[in-house]
């Protein structure tokens, strides 16, 4: 499959490239250059400068593609947050329509849907909840992009998978008792979700717009990852619950 990656040279992108490069032909794009290691190791794939805020650039970049993975994000700039997180999704969906691309994977933070009225209040929060992002710039601008994807998916023959994340860590950082937020996944497990999302038969998705929480098996039970497991076949390899395990008894007794 020919896959367009937008915002591919940030934090998430290099991990996704590594997870899917062996199985797909990638067009790796961003406004920033790729890490040297990625350029060196995956030089047989295509690299291109693409600004997701520019509709023409996105449409041109999507030509000849079978899937679009949008990892573009801006968190704090009051203008760019909307142009990238909201308008960027509009450009992605326009490009998908124009080129007959039926598979789109969009990304965002967990509070795209599970904002302050859910987080810290409820447990067993699934991804299929009415979005309550709150009024923060980052979650709200991402949530509006999410809505654009939903509206377009319902109007066109496009299947959108929304992958939502919170904390991402290197496998080596998942250490005993380190703690952290109860929505965490290793980078390699997160990247694996994209490989699964590109592999799934579109007709096996329950609808043309599906949201998934991508997290490991966190013991607190605040957020649920069973939908990703059930539908995508997501199986986190890294034990995130290490983060909250106490040391063994004899170790705790040591001075």
């Amino acid at each position, binding site marked *: 499959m020919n896959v367009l990656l937008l915002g591919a040279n940030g934090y998430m992108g290099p991990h996704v490239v590594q997870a899917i490069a062996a199985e797909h032909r990638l067009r790796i794009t961003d406004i920033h250059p790729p890490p040297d290691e990625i350029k060196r190791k995956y030089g047989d794939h295509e690299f291109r400068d693409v600004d997701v805020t520019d*509709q023409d650039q996105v449409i041109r970049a999507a030509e000849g593609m079978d899937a679009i993975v949008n990892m573009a994000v801006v968190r704090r700039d*009051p*203008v760019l947050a*909307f*142009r990238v997180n*909201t*308008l960027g999704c*509009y*450009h992605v*969906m*326009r490009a998908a329509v124009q080129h007959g691309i039926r598979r789109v994977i969009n990304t965002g933070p967990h509070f795209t849907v599970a*904002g*302050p*009225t859910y987080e810290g209040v409820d447990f067993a929060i699934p991804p299929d909840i009415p979005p*309550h*992002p*709150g*009024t923060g*710039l980052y979650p*709200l*601008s991402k*949530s*509006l992009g999410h*809505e*654009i994807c939903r*509206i*377009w998916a*319902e*109007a*066109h023959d496009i299947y959108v998978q929304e992958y939502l994340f919170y904390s991402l860590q290197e496998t080596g950082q998942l250490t005993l008792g380190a703690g952290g937020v109860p929505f965490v996944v290793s980078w390699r497990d997160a990247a694996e979700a994209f490989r699964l999302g590109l592999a799934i038969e579109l007709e096996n998705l329950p609808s043309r717009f599906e949201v998934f929480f991508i997290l490991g098996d966190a013991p607190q039970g605040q957020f649920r990852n069973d939908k990703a497991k059930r539908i995508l076949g997501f199986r986190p390899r890294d034990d995130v619950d290490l983060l909250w395990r106490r040391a063994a008894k004899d170790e705790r007794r040591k001075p």
Partner: protein
Amino acid sequence: MKRRRFLQRAGLAVAGGAGAVAARPAGPLVAAEQAASRVRDGDQRRRVLVTAADTPLARALGDGLAEAWPVQLTSPADVQTRLPFARCELAADDRTGELVKGVDSIVHLALAPAGIALAEQIDSGVRGTYNLFTAAAAAGVRRAVLVSSLEVMSGYGEVFQVAEDWQPRPPADAPAVAEYLAERVGREFARQRKLEVVVLRIGKVVRAESVAGQPFDPWWVDQRDVLQAVSLALGAKQISYPRGTENWAVFHILSDSPGARFSVNKAQAGLGYRPHYRW
């Protein structure tokens, strides 16, 4: 005299003259006048800010509301007006913060401007609404009346009698998407209790005299009835109807003509809306 002039502008009294189509005679003291009375008798800090003053509708609303409220207009471009005016692009900056200081309520026209690409409609509409509401919440503005469009509900077939409690279905790739997203911004501010937000979804705004003799359009609403609805939304003691959502309400504003596309029952019951012009 000032009261009668206000009622005439609000479509609640016969304006007289040719061209007034099926105008209803003035009835008993109605909600809009009661709202205006509360303004005169109540807190002096009642300044109303009206956005999008570079549009005819906003200017008409500003002129009409100025009969009962101290009104200030704003828009990104300079406009000719007798009312106080401040130019502002609704950016995330001090200018927007200054704009909303001392304002009690905002009438924010979130209607997508014609003649620009949908991408720009989305970006400017959503970002402007967000910046305005963020500044307003910080400044203690009490209420925002967000004027949106009934087009956000146009995704339903005409066989359905669509009401305010139906999920919005704006057609993809239409200006209604920008209007719907502005509503979503307002909804989050209301949900977080940072502002009271009343959404008025309006139809195609006309002046009854100017469409006299034309085939009836079920989306018509007279500009003076829109003014009435905005006045009612500004002056209502509480906005939630019928259940207590406290900070959030949506009303459909149209004529109550027999063939009107959407019912105005909720606006009639919840705001006291009495459309004056029908076809």
